[in-house]
């Protein structure tokens, strides 16, 4: 049987010592990282701790970092990740406190679902149907993939925003919220979108695609977050930085065909009293930019050429009219979703 070295990041809560330990495990083609960890635990070191249960990518227990990326140990075959005799590096999930070895405290991850109230909230004072609720196929197609989440936390572990802000709701809870926002049986759509548009919600996502790459079940959390943004704006929930930023960005491109860096920060902050401290906060940075000539270049407001601007404005107008007639934005998301699900 082939042999493979593993370097495992360990932590002993009694001595509070973090250390790396190397093991060598035998494996047969087709065997997974989890099989090797169990082999090590059973034959070499019974104190090695990690969570696992189903071994079939259903229970969501065994998410951990393998060679730096979060994945299910039971869904990851050794032969797929081994590189030129390098050891496979195994570490606990990120963005969460380590309890012991590869076991982390997932309470922050789970709290996010409670904060976002990711359960069905029925329409009050309405008699339930005599048989089951019916969901139209188009509606089901929109969110059924998000309902496959197994709460493994791989997305949360790799999320670049949670790393900077532990209060950020995170990809999994936001994808679950999406599922209820677009569920016609739910009564709280608008309230949900308002809550999700607050700080630590949809507008704090950086769109880094980490969660889409990490998810072992193709939930496409980031795409769900993006569609929530569009829906929130459509519902008129625009008194926030994110919507103002998007609108200001769009306005600049409409005028010149290009991003208008000179006015964007001001318009994103908003014409309101509360924006004043924020705008003052830009001053030291702006002075440094002035010194490096960057501000002058931005203020020159480069644009597309004359014919380009004319065509771009035509497209903006036509799209606006088209949006009033048909659900083109939902079509855009559907196109992205179907190609993503097909590719994965």
């Amino acid at each position: 049987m082939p042999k493979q070295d593993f370097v495992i990041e360990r932590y002993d809560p009694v001595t509070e010592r973090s250390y790396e330990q190397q093991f060598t495990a035998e494996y047969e083609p087709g065997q997974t990282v989890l099989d090797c960890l169990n082999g090590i635990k059973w034959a070499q070191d019974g104190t090695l701790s990690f969570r696992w249960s189903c071994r079939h990518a259903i229970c969501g227990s065994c998410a951990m970092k393998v060679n730096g990326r979060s994945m299910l140990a039971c869904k990851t075959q050794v032969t797929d990740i081994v590189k030129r005799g390098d050891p496979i590096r195994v570490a606990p999930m990120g963005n969460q406190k380590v309890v012991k070895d590869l076991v982390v405290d997932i309470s922050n991850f789970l709290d996010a679902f409670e904060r976002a109230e990711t359960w069905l909230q029925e329409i009050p004072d309405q008699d339930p149907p005599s048989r089951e609720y019916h969901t139209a196929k188009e509606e089901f197609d929109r969110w059924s993939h998000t309902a496959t989440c197994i709460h493994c936390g791989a997305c949360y572990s790799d999320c670049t925003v949670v790393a900077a802000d532990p209060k950020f709701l995170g990809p999994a809870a936001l994808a679950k919220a999406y599922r209820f926002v677009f569920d016609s049986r739910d009564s709280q759509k608008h309230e949900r979108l308002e809550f999700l548009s607050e700080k630590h919600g949809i507008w704090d996502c950086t769109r880094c695609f980490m969660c889409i790459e990490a998810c072992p079940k193709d939930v496409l959390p980031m795409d769900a977050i993006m569609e929530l943004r569009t829906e929130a704006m459509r519902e008129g929930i625009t008194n926030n930085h994110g919507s103002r930023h998007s609108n200001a960005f769009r306005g600049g491109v409409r005028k010149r065909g290009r991003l208008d860096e000179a006015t964007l920060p001001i318009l994103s902050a908003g014409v309101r009293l509360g924006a004043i401290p924020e705008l003052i906060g830009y001053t030291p940075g702006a002075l440094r930019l002035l010194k490096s000539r960057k501000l002058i270049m931005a203020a020159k407001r480069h644009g597309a050429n004359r014919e380009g601007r004319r065509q771009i404005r035509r497209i903006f107008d036509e799209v606006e009219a088209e949006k009033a007639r048909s659900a083109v934005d939902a079509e855009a998301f559907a196109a992205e979703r179907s190609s993503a699900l097909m590719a994965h």
Partner: protein
Amino acid sequence: MKYAFWPGCVSRGAAPELYTATKAVAEHIGMELVELEAAACTGAGIISDGDPYLQDVLNARTLAMASKLGLPLIDICSTCIGVHSLAVEKLENEEYRARINERLAPEGLEYTGDTKPRHLLWALFEDLEDDRLRSLIKRPLAELKLGPFYGCYILRPERVLGFAEHPHRRRSLESAIELVGASVVTYDGMTKCCGFPILTTNKRNSLAMAGGHVGEAKDSGADALVTPCPLCHLNLDAQQYDAARVVHRKLDLPILHLPQLIGLAMGIEPDKLGLDGHVVNTKPLLHKAGVR
């Protein structure tokens, strides 16, 4: 080697040194760049917050312009290549493509799907003969230890970036650093988000990301970072002093644009590469590299 060239908004705005350096390097290696002066901003994933369909129309238009010229489209920004590549994927859907082509028709344009956009970083290794590329390196930067900083959209989602056909793209930036003879410093943050997309939405989080990555690279021994993305450059360089305050430490790490690095190693003079236009001073780095 002739390309339809999309410079992106930032190289014509707050990062003019990227435009300067790109032109200098292209001329040096004989890449002819036909600038798409009528093209629109990609929307950067921000227009799509409220108007995803509009963003797709704008990008289909840019791709169709390149295809009308019969030239491959070249980008010099990780965000631009990411948004263009995602548009290509969505436009494979025939119904959606037909709808979008109706918006392009009045201008005499049609998106046919025959344009695959590429980033300058990829083009260097895929379109130039390997021997010729290596022969152009006249001033190896052997003294420098450099950290790559990719920018999300040139790495993710992998499915739209041609990684299956071009596996080298996964470590293209390390290859560029090796090409110029410098040593590669790897660190955790090199493939993560610079924070720029949320700079105006959540400045503290944004700068904590930028400052965290720069600090980590510095701790790993990097003399500078190199990036193929001008948006990352804005957060890592132009915002570096504010980021330093958020992470409570001194940073002072120069950030190079990809063509600046390549240009330096090809023997192009620093002032022709806009190296004096950064917020973080690049002089000590040039001194260490033995350039003037």
